[in-house]
Structure formats: structure tokens, C-alpha cells
């Protein structure tokens, strides 16, 4: 290896002194075999390889990566849209629930008010009915008492008349009987 490097150094350095830069370049080209028939095919070969790698290696992979990036971006956009819709839906649901709560509260208040009014009405009706019943009962009682009083008067009169007839031996006139009855009744009523 060292011999080779020494050889390389001498072959490149010595002509440089003799023929300047052009000579050095020529010697390097000779030593390293930088010849058109080797160099130009290498350039073509490299560019061909680069083209083939671009077409068959990097191309399909980059296309796939682009597709995946696009898909991820689409997915993220959809996710954001779904999140937005979800938030809107949650807000809408909250609004509906709030409205339902308010409605329910109002209905309960109304029902409460309605129930109170109905109770009052029914109570008044009941009171009226009761008063009516009491009045009827009182009227009935008064009528019954009047009836009993009339019957009693009649029976008392009859008893008084009978008793007076028996005491007088049946010699009382109609006017006398009536006078006795009225006097007896007046005393009973007093």
C-alpha cells in the first residue's frame, strides 16, 4: 500500500514541476484512468441509475407517502368536522333539554295553579252543597215540626173536646167546644 501511495505521489508531483497544472491534471487522469471511454459511460450510467431509481424506487414510495399524508390530512379534517358537529349537537341537546326543563317547570306551575283553583272551586261547591243540604234539612225539620205541632194541636183539641164532653155529659155546643180548644191550645203554646 505504501509503495503504491509513494508511486502515486511521485507520479503526480514530479510532472507538476515539469509541465505545470496541465501536466498534473494529465498525470492524475492517466493514473486514475479518467478516460472519456470510461468517464462518459459512468456519467450516463449514473444518470440512468438516478432516473431508474426515481421511476421505480422513489417514485412509487413517494406517491404512497403523499397518498397517506393526504389521507391523514383528510382524516384530521373529518375529525375536526365531526368534533364541530358533536359540539353543535351537544349544544343543541343542551338547549333542547333546557327548553324542555323550562316547559316542564312552567307546566308544573300551571298545574299547581290549576289544582289550587280547582280545589278552591270544589271546596266552594262543597260548602254551597253543604249549606244547601243544611237549609233543606232545616226546612224539612221546620215543616216536620209544624206538622207535628198541627197533629199535636189536633190530637190535643180532640182529647180536650172528648174530655169536656165526658165531663159535661155531652151537652157542649160547637162554639163552646171551639172556645175550649183555643184556650187549651193557647195554654199549651204558652
Amino acid at each position: 500500500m505504501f509503495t503504491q501511495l509513494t508511486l502515486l505521489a511521485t507520479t503526480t508531483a514530479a510532472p507538476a514541476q515539469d509541465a505545470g497544472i496541465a501536466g498534473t491534471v494529465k498525470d492524475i487522469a492517466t493514473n486514475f484512468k479518467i478516460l472519456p471511454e470510461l468517464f462518459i459511460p459512468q456519467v450516463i450510467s449514473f444518470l440512468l441509475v438516478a432516473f431508474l431509481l426515481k421511476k421505480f424506487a422513489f417514485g412509487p414510495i413517494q406517491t404512497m407517502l403523499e397518498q397517506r399524508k393526504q389521507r391523514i390530512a383528510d382524516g384530521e379534517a373529518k375529525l375536526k368536522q365531526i368534533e364541530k358537529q358533536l359540539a353543535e349537537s351537544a349544544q343543541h341537546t343542551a338547549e333542547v333539554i333546557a327548553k324542555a326543563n323550562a316547559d316542564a317547570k312552567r307546566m308544573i306551575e300551571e298545574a299547581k295553579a290549576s289544582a289550587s283553583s280547582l280545589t278552591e272551586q270544589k271546596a266552594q261547591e262543597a260548602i254551597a252543597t253543604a249549606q244547601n243540604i243544611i237549609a233543606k234539612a232545616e226546612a224539612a225539620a221546620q215543616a216536620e215540626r209544624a206538622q207535628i205541632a198541627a197533629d199535636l194541636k189536633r190530637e190535643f183539641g180532640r182529647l180536650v173536646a172528648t174530655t169536656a164532653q165526658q165531663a159535661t155529659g155531652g151537652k157542649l155546643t160547637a162554639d163552646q167546644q171551639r172556645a175550649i180548644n183555643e184556650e187549651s191550645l193557647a195554654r199549651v203554646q204558652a
Partner: protein
Amino acid sequence: MAAGAGHDHLPVHAEELFRVGPIAISNSMLMVWIVAAVIILVAQLATRNIALIPSGLQNFVEWLVESLYNFLEGILGTHLVKKTFWFFGTIFVLILFTNWFGLIPGVGTIGQFDPAGFDGDSHDTFRPFLRGGNADLNMTLAMSISFALLWFYWAISENGLVGFFKHIFAPKGKFSGIMAVMMLVVFGFVGLLELVSIIFRPVALSFRLFGNIFAGETTLETMTAITGKWYTAWLPPLPFYFMELLVGLIQALVFMLLTAVFLKLICEHSDEEGHEHH
């Protein structure tokens, strides 16, 4: 025939195997084609039944390409990487696998033996069928020159011809009066230095890669021959194989990074303007 029979030394240049008309096919060129074929085959196998949810080989290949793309995107920016990924991706993958394939036993050690010597050279008695692709200056120079041409094309298409020259020669910053004149002279001179640097970039790129890979192969060959016994020949080069695996990766990375940075430097201004416009 195996190399042991008469392998003289590892020459600094690739050797011609055969000719197709005026085109000479060298053992390094053959190696590059084999590596390219393997890469294409693997890519085709990975993308044959391409699935949206990757697994196995597709997963690995996608990971490699995506990591490389993101890495280059960090250097070049979104706009430039879309345009140039095919080149930098090829550079990295091709150099990396060519370097690693060059370490496979048989590369550089299986070939033709002629005791009389090839091409009339009595020292050149062995001609391997395959040679590390980047251990051939023609190959590294071909990549560098291709990059240099593409660099000009991308730089001019991004900056415009006037913008390209302004980028190299025009003063950076705002000056007025005598200061502007002085800066014109200073930046004109800096531009000339930049031109020299641009001219020498392909040379530096090609010799760096070639030098590292050729030195590695020479080291491995020397270490293999150091014991002089066939049954212990595998041991001395063993640590160097691991080092060469690392060197192969680093050199691929260095070549790709430098070329990407060179492009970024010339397109930086217009790229920023492009972003501002957007």
C-alpha cells in the same frame, strides 16, 4: 479464479472488463449496476402490494425514504426538496449501498488471473470482476459533475440568470456613497473566490469519496494479507470491516449533505423571497 493465486495489488483505477462498441465496461461500473438493480428490486418488492397501512419491507423502505425526505427538507426547505429529492435520495442510497456492497467477500477478490499480466503490464496479473463502485474516480467524478451541472440548472431556474450572478458577485447589505463602491470591489473579489470554490467543488467531492473508499479497501486488503496464512487471513481485517461500514455511511451522508448545502446556499435568497411572496 480467486485473488490469492496472483493478486498483485489493488490498482487506483477501475479495470476494463469488456467493451460494447466504444463504451468500456469497467468492474466498478458493473458493481454500480448490480447495486442499482438490487435497490430497484427491493423498492419494487416493497411497493408491489403497496398497502395504506405498511408492514414488513414496505414499512422499512418507507421509513428510509421518509426519514431521508424529512432530513433533506430540514436543509433545503419544502420547495427545493420536492424538486431535488430524486437526486439527493439517489446520491445517498446509491453511495451507501455501493460502499457496503464493496465489503461483501468476493468483491475485488474474484476475477481473472493472467500470469503474463493484462495490457502488457507484468505487474497487473489479476483483474477482479467487481470493484467497489466508489473506489473508482470515474464514478465519483461522474456523480460530482452531474451534480455540478444540475446545481447550475437549479440555481439559475430558482434565481434567474441575473439573480444567479448577483448572488455570487453583488454586495450583501445596503451601502451608499464611497462605501458602496468599495463594497462592489470587495464583493467582486469575493465572487471570484466563490467561482473558484464552485469550480473545485466537484474535484473535492469526488476525491474525498474516492479517497476514503479506496483507502478502506486498501486497508482491508493489506490486513487480509498481513498474516500470510489463509486460515488466519479473516481475523486482522475484521475490526476494519466494522469501521468501513461506518465510513460507508458517513461518506454517503457527507456527499449528500455537502451537495444539498451547496444547493441551499445558492438558492437561499430566492427561497426566502419565495416564502415571503407566499
